């Protein structure tokens, strides 16, 4: 896959280039936000730093989102909740905080890519780690064990797995389940999540990202 790395720190940029190359991706690196806006068309995915010399990364993201739906992963040193939430709200597909482990970086890139691929060609079978979901039969299995899920729990699980390891915000989930992103049903989402977690059997499949939403972890520790 062709990646565009927007990063002003040379050491990080070269390490990132080496890292993604090790997984067989091709990558190009730009230094400034304005270059990113010029060159994004060549890349299938963008790794975006927020602290750029010419403009703020969130501004780059906002402008990118006006012209492209290509996946954007924010990789930054900014770890305050406000930046995380704003980044994801502005349309980033994932938000990683430096320093990030190589495996995690590659897994997130794959997860986002997988999700993009699914969006293009919907399949009736979803798999993530031990979990298999059949959208046609509306059944789900964990390591061969069939789960008896309520319709809402099934929708919830399918939605999280479809996001393929990247974060689904509470608003996205509520919008998909109830058709209303700002419903007062926030509490009932918690109820369904608790039920789903109990049925999955192992804690750690559904990771609560504080203040943002939820992420499906295919291989929990």
């Amino acid at each position, binding site marked *: 896959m062709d990646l565009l790395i927007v990063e002003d720190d040379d050491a*990080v940029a070269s390490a990132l280039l080496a890292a993604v190359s090790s997984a067989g991706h091709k990558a190009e690196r730009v230094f400034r936000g304005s270059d990113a806006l010029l060159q994004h068309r060549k890349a299938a995915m963008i790794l975006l730093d927020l602290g750029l010399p010419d403009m703020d990364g969130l501004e780059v993201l906002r402008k990118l989102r006006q012209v492209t739906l290509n996946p954007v992963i924010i990789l930054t*040193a900014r*770890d305050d909740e406000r930046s995380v939430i704003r980044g994801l709200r502005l349309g980033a597909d994932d938000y990683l905080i*430096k320093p*990030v482990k190589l495996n995690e970086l590659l897994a997130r890139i794959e997860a986002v890519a997988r999700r993009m691929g699914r969006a293009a060609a919907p399949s009736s079978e979803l798999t993530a780690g031990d979990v298999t979901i059949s959208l046609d039969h509306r059944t789900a299995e964990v390591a061969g064990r069939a789960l008896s899920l309520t319709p809402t729990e099934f929708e919830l699980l399918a939605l999280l797995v479809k996001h393929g390891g990247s974060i689904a915000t509470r608003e996205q989930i509520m919008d998909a389940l109830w058709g209303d992103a700002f419903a007062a049903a926030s509490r009932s989402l918690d109820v369904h999540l608790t039920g789903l*977690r109990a049925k999955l059997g192992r804690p750690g499949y559904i990771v609560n990202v504080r203040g943002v939403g939820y992420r499906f972890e295919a291989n929990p520790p």
Partner: protein
Amino acid sequence: MRVRVLGVLGILSLLLVLGLAYSLLSAGSRELTQELQINRVASLNRLAQVATEAAASNDWTVLQTEMDSYSNLYGEGILVHTQDRALASGALDPNRADVKDAFFNASLNLSLTSVEPLWPFGPSSRLVSRSFGSANQVLGEVVLEVNTAAAQAKLRTLWLLVIVAAVILEAGLLLLAARVTGWVLRPIHRLNSAVLELEATGFMQQLPQDGPPELRELSRSLTTMAAAVQESLDQQRQLIADTSHQLRNPVAALRLRADLLQLQLSDGPGREGIQPVLAELDRVEGLLDGVLTLATAENRLSEGQARQAVGPSSSAGARANPALIAQEELERAGAAAALNGTTLVWGPEPAGDVDLDCNPLELAQMVGELLGNAIKYAAGGTVEVSVAAGPGEVRLDVSDDGPGLPAEQLASAVARFWRAPQHRGIAGTGLGMTIVDRLARANGGELVLAAVHPHGLRARLVFPR
């Protein structure tokens, strides 16, 4: 200080007003007395003249007519004694003691021609007397009654005027003194409360420039000093935040390089060698996260204190439901707990409304930190989280049945980078409890650590409501 300054100024102004009133009144009284005296002594002299002539001609009718017309006109009695006769006009009793004294003195050629200073109240009858006769012989005595009622009435009016004026003047002076005292003291009080505020919160609002020039100067210096203190604190905090932020890039590069190296050294002896490097890298990352979180928490703390100093009403009230947050954090911690065999227990469901004023994200962060600590140090045991509402407060407890901390270590547990000597073997930064403590205080609450019987630690977050 205000009372003392005002007291001194009040006494001084009272003395001033009394002195002024006294001199005015005595001058008035003297003038009236003098006028009366000059007037009556002239009359007395004239009567004595007439009496002398009457004695010379032995014709007393002129004198009697003169006396009668005088008494009719002025209503004051006159008595004239000679050796062989006594003439009287008006209503002056010849048997009054002072009248007799006056005759006696006059017969000794002692004239009584001065009138005692007048008082607004008191006897309204005075006497003047003199003898008459030729140069070598006293022929008789004249006693003239002086009726002072009219003069006293005038004097009373004067007293009334002066007293009213004095009261008004004194009130004006006291008012002026109060204004001056306030003008001098207001900046002092303000400086004082500003210094107290600076001491308590490390934050001081701009002082208005008024009052005497010296105090204005002082308040300017104080504002400058406070700004310098604040700025240096801010700079220090910013430096920590910036440094750890700037460190993230090289550490990120290092982490990726080390992971790549490990991947490339997939077999062979080098793989063993890189493990300690990765472990150290984990520690550096943990420290970096801790220091940055602490810097943010301390920033929030000083913000919170500044807000409290301005007034409780302005605290933007973010509400948090601690029961909901605690359950969410229990879920999140579930994976870590399952890994080291710790049991997580959600305590009795709290009765009624336990919502409290706290940033929900920060409350989640605090509970998460406390849970992480408990799972780490009480591995394999049971960790219970409970929420309860007490009178005027909400308590959130995270208690474990691990080894706990001895009493003398409980107090130092919230100090930066403090780690219990017996826990050196367990990875950690010594920043977790510090962060929880700062965040709790930033939200108006506090962290209380206590021992659990028979062993274990209870971390309690107490928030007022």
